[in-house]
């Protein structure tokens, strides 16, 4: 048979709706509870002292269980950033953003890891590494993942 010679090709649509319900776990549970109180909670490795934000159960380098909760300042420093020009629309397709958005990796003093979130209230052209930003917490957000809303320049 010549390549492409087969004619019996059918297109079948299979409707499928997957439903997942991921548990955030003990540690992210406390992180979200902290946010709702207006606090940014990280966790410290008892062995090497690294502070994880967001928190996680295990310090992977030491393989120890993290126990000591640390409240971190709401201000942080942009370690790296990008500027987004498209977003995923409700139909799952990419669509152009009306105005480009800045997304930063923010390190809070005392933490050894970064949080990635949108930085609002600035012209993306003004974004830069080393910039100081403050986290904006929206306690009334319907979705738990939206309580840490975004960052704004200090």
């Amino acid at each position, binding site marked *: 048979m010549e390549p492409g010679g087969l004619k019996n090709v059918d297109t*079948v649509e299979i409707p*499928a709706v997957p439903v997942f319900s991921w*548990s955030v*776990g*003990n540690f992210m549970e406390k992180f979200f509870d902290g946010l709702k109180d207006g606090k940014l909670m990280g966790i410290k490795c008892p062995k090497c002292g690294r502070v994880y934000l967001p928190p996680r*159960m295990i310090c992977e*380098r030491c*393989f120890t269980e993290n126990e000591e909760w640390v409240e971190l300042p709401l201000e942080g420093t942009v370690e790296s950033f990008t500027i987004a020009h498209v977003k995923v629309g409700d139909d799952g397709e990419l669509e152009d953003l009306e105005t480009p958005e800045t997304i930063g990796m923010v390190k809070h003093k005392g933490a050894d890891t970064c949080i990635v979130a949108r930085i609002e209230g600035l012209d993306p052209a003004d974004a830069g590494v080393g910039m100081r930003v403050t986290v904006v917490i929206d306690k009334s957000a319907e979705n738990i993942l939206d309580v840490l809303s975004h960052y704004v320049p200090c």
Partner: protein
Amino acid sequence: MQDVAVIGVGLSKHVSKRRDVNIAELVYEAVSAAYDDAGVSPRDMDAVITGNMPAFEGVNMPELWGAGHWGAYGKPLLRITTGGTTGGSVVHGAFYAVASGMFDTVIAISFEKQSDGDTTMGLNSVGIADFAAILHFGTDPEFLVSAGGGAIGIVAYQATSYMKSSGCTTHHYDKVAAMCRSNAARNPYAHLKQPDITPEDVAKTDMMEYPLRFGHCCPATDGACAMIITSADKAKKMTGRPAYIKSCASCSDEAAIIGIFGGGPAHLDPCSQEGCKKAAEKAYKLAGIKEPRKEIDVAEPYAPFANQLLMFYERLFLCDEGEAPAVLDSGSMEIDGELPVCPSGGVISTNAIGASAMERIAECALQIMGKAGEHQVNKDVHNAVAHGWGGALNLNVVAVLGDTPRR
């Protein structure tokens, strides 16, 4: 090739919904228990081998999320996923790694957190691949739905065929379910524990899909299992009583297509399970087992459905074909019987799918090491056989464990 041994086993709590932990944290319970049991730490591991069902939790690469929680930081990491056989294949992978001499000590980890995921969707991801094959044969995919959905829709054919070939009745399936669930009641890591259940109770449960009733079917479980596997030389120095993995063998049979070939590969008889026989033959040969009926002291066949315990007991050559129902009636399979079967309670009592085939091997190891506690069998265990069934219905994995290395 170096001899291989198990020096530690760890299990998480197994229940239907672990909302208090995420996937990485759930698996950590089993992993840390295994390290503690063996008296080792991640520092002693040369590699980490893990696996779970593809797509079940909707997390595509959970091993990369969990790696650090399981002691894999800075180590070689490998994921193996082969359907229902996954946990068995993970141990086979660990066995190959150590036996080859590439690594001395590895941790094998398997798990499933079914409550986080969408099991039907997960099975559909297997089924959707089958749609293509079904269309190949010119069959309308709607036929798949009418042929029966999910795992039970596959196993129902095996159960009917087995009744025909062995002459047993559904009463035997009721007895198997009651035996396993009461064994599970002795196992702190089992999910469905029914100490006082009778075959009559099972017979009263709802019919799911002929000839299988609700009581003949496994639950959906959140749970994890981990095993520390090392060379026999190291094992002797690290523990007084290791469980040696004498052999691992697997067999991929002809591809099975759900809805066309029923519950088995492309044979007329879905309960023939030739692949299991081939894997078992090879495993016994490698292990130096000549007469499995006399030499095997405990068996852990993979049986999420009651009928499969009898079918696979035969395909593992523990009795003649068609004789398993009579062996069951004799009481020999009971936990205090001559050749106890599924003293752990089996997959019919606890099914964290990706972990289930490993938990068969783990149970054999615990029985040999004398660490099974309340469900320790009432006899010396010199050799035990563990089995897994999965793939796209066509993969069987068999491992023989013993209290001495291979001769």
